[in-house]
């Protein structure tokens, strides 16, 4: 396995101040995925505890979760399941609502994307409030999947998303965190 340190992963993430609005620091992973050595190592490290766990499929959350999830699925010899915002998937879907800052939105997955009893890991780039990830876990469980873990490159710990996933008894793995965001 390629090896990079947590400090190198952190350094590969670009901070963009005042984006998308003043006072917000945007954590940009395009610099990380653009760095061949760090990207490869992060793909391996993100799901390292489950590399031999018989993962059937990797679920990724639109949109940056697709970049990571496809690569992770390849490394685990697993299938990939896209979880998308409402109205983007062409085949019959199941959906779960999740709360936004103002109001509700829904995420969906194809109803035949997962079979009951399959072992999945959920992947996304960033864990903030955990609202989308919590909805994704409920969605996958509604299809009968066992969600082995939820894995993120970045955590914004001030938003306490890990606690929401822990309440669902899902192991949460996050590689680096940025407190104060």
């Amino acid at each position, binding site marked *: *396995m390629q*090896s990079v*340190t*947590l400090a190198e992963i952190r350094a590969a993430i670009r901070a963009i101040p005042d984006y998308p609005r003043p006072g917000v620091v945007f954590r940009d992973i395009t610099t990380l995925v653009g760095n061949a050595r760090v990207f490869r190592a992060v793909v*391996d*490290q993100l799901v*390292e*505890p*489950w590399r*031999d*766990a018989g993962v059937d499929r990797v679920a990724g959350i639109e949109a940056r979760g697709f970049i990571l999830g496809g690569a992770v699925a390849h490394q685990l010899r697993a299938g990939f399941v896209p979880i998308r915002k409402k109205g983007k998937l062409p085949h019959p879907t199941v959906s779960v609502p999740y709360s936004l800052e103002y109001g509700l939105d829904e995420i969906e997955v194809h109803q035949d994307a997962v079979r009951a009893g399959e072992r999945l890991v959920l992947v996304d780039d960033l864990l903030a409030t955990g609202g989308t990830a919590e909805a994704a876990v409920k969605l996958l469980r509604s299809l009968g999947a066992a969600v*082995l*873990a939820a*894995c993120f490159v*970045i*955590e914004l*710990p001030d938003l306490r998303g*890990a606690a929401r*996933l*822990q309440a669902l*008894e*899902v*192991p*949460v*793995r*996050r*590689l*680096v*965190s*940025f*407190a104060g965001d």
Partner: protein
Amino acid sequence: MLAHSDACERNKEPILAVLREAFAAVGGVLEVGSGTGQHAVHFAAHLPRLVWQPSEVPELIAPLEERVRLEGGANLRAPVALDVRATPWACAPVDAVFSANTLHIMSWESVGSFFRGVGGVLAAGGVLVVYGPFNYGGRFTSASNAQFDAWLRARDPVSGLRDFAAVDALARAQGLELAADHAMPANNRTLVWRRAA
């Protein structure tokens, strides 16, 4: 016959009770100094949602490998060789580190290496759990701990019971905050730190 520790058999249930809480949402655990492997086998079997990675110094790894091979379940990995003095530790980031009865065996210099190593591999939100006897305020907490310390130092002058405050200072230097200090049977402690940032 497999290597055996009576102490491990006595303390494994009280430690497991702490780990159930501390490791409730943990994915991968690295155990440093797995010894006979009795803890690794027991904790992995009773915490089936996590993946347990035992380790030991190269010269002591063979009996550990034997126990894991004979008694290990699907979530207990084959042991890896790890000397805490290596920089950095050659392993992927882990969500938790566990170590029992190691800090009073290694030299104080190696205790420093242990915390630097943990600081380098413990992922965001990560948890460190250390079990063993500790001194508080520069004093032994019992006559039996004082006798144990004398026995250790006679055997190896660089070993000996560590002071909690000095150990906690090493943890804080790595961005770890003490989350709990559990009193355990036979004048031992289980210390729990969490990565602050």
